[in-house]
């Protein structure tokens, strides 16, 4: 097992407000690593620091042993760091297929191509395969704006997968999903286990304990524990900080 994504003493503050406090997080290659913590613990900020949407006040981010702290997010993406967003972040005027073809083309990091989009039929086939994979079979020509919320979450995941990433940062993929949709998403993520390195930010504890190889707990911007699901379940500090008076939300 080698560390593929690491942070070293990562810190982010906005004025006096510290949202990430000296976080040392390590993702091993191939693992599904869950990041949990109460609301406002700084989970999304940490994901944004990893993906390059935010730049840290101090500390470093390493991908496959190389420091990527100063790289903008598109350069990180090109190195194999894909992500989904807590609030669906999609191309509203595109069809699902067009979004995916673009994402597939974007793997090389540029799209200054002047052939017709529709002409890349090999990519279209691959796009449909990805849509099948995430459960959007037959929805390839539907404009994103007229898809349901659940479908948006599925498309988010498909876009991340299109990059054939080394690491996927999944920011609450289940956010806003109903019971049945959640179950489907858990199934889908389970099928990806082991094939990708995944950092899973999630509120749904059933999902977390069903999917995670390891779990890290964030509270007030600080990483307070990392361990196997069983360790975390029995960790007194975590129980106090996190499950204290409320069994997850």
């Amino acid at each position: 097992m080698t560390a593929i994504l690491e942070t070293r003493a990562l810190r982010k503050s906005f004025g006096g407000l510290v949202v990430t406090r000296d976080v040392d997080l390590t993702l091993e290659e191939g693992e599904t690593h869950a990041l949990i913590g109460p609301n406002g613990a700084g989970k999304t900020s940490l994901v944004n620091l990893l993906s390059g949407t935010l730049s840290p006040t101090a500390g470093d981010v390493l991908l496959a042993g190389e420091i990527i702290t100063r790289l903008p997010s598109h350069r990180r993406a090109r190195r194999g760091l894909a992500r989904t967003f807590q609030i669906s972040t999609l191309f509203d005027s595109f069809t699902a297929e067009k979004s995916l073809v673009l994402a597939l083309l974007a793997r090389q990091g540029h799209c200054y191509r002047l052939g017709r989009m529709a002409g890349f039929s090999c990519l279209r086939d691959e796009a449909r395969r990805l849509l099948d994979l995430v459960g959007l079979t037959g929805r390839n020509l539907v404009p994103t704006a007229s898809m349901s919320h659940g479908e948006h979450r599925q498309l988010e995941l498909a876009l991340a997968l299109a990059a054939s990433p080394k690491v996927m940062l999944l920011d609450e993929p289940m956010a806003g999903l109903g019971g049945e949709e959640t179950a489907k998403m858990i199934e889908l993520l389970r099928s990806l286990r082991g094939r990708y390195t995944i950092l899973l930010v999630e509120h749904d504890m059933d999902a977390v304990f069903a999917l995670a190889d390891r779990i890290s707990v964030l509270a007030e911007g600080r990483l307070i524990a990392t361990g196997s699901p069983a360790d975390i379940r029995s960790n007194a500090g975590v129980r106090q900080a996190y499950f204290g008076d409320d069994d997850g939300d």
Partner: protein
Amino acid sequence: MTRDLRWPAFVLLAATAFALPFIGDSYIVQLATRMLIFGMAALGIDFFLAYVGQLSLGHTIFLASGAYLTALLTMAGLESALLVWPIVLLGVALLALAAGMLALRTGGLYFIMITLAFTQMLFFFLQSQRGLGGDEGFSVPQRNTLPLLDLSDPRNLYLLVLVLLLGVIGLIAWIRATPFGAAIEACRDNAQRLSAMGLDPYGYRLSGFVFSAVIVGLAGILYTNNTLYLTPALSGWYLSGELLMMVILGGSGSLLGPVLGAALFVLLQEQLSHITPHWMAGLGALLVARVMLMKDGFWNVLARRLGGDDSHS
């Protein structure tokens, strides 16, 4: 579903446009030439507005620089369009690259205002050029020359402008169908996602800015060839406002909307000024009414009637 009548409408319009110089007098031809030139400029501005998703008040810089560069090269003795026009377009592209690199650091309202600042700077610069007649402007001795086509005949110039305009429309349609165009539009929809996919939004915005500037620059070249007289007002914020009016009268985001908007605007301005010296009030009221009462420009509304929900013709 009813039949899609947008293509027949387009063909009819194009046929009318081609027939015009053979049925109208040369005043009509000149008026129509101006409509098409402003239509091309409006199209360039709308490319940036609709596909890159940002509003620029600064595109008159490229209209003015295209026009002035053409005039200066012509007066320096370079007359061949095949030589002058590519040089001018390259110059406009470089200027757009420089302006875009600075302006695109900002966004939204700040972007609108920094582009306004650029037009004002160019305006005052041109206005201070004593060799070029200051605010009163200067006369350009002759049109550029082309092999086989005598541009000194207004009809030929009109036909050339029309063909170039159709070429620009085709070019935009083609760009939109390529991954490059898709990336530009994706950047408008969601820059964050584009960046998460490994594409640099800034690069696509900048490319879109330069591309739209070059279209406007081409309109500037044609402007000089049409009027043979230039004044710094070509770089004024007022003209920027008028060009945007043309865009929204016809409808943004469609290939014919800005062109037909320009035609309507020029026609209205011309007709209203025959009726009353207070024509500006009429124009202003029309603008307010268009924004308040219609959700989109008249061509886009019409296009939707003619076929389907897609506003892109």
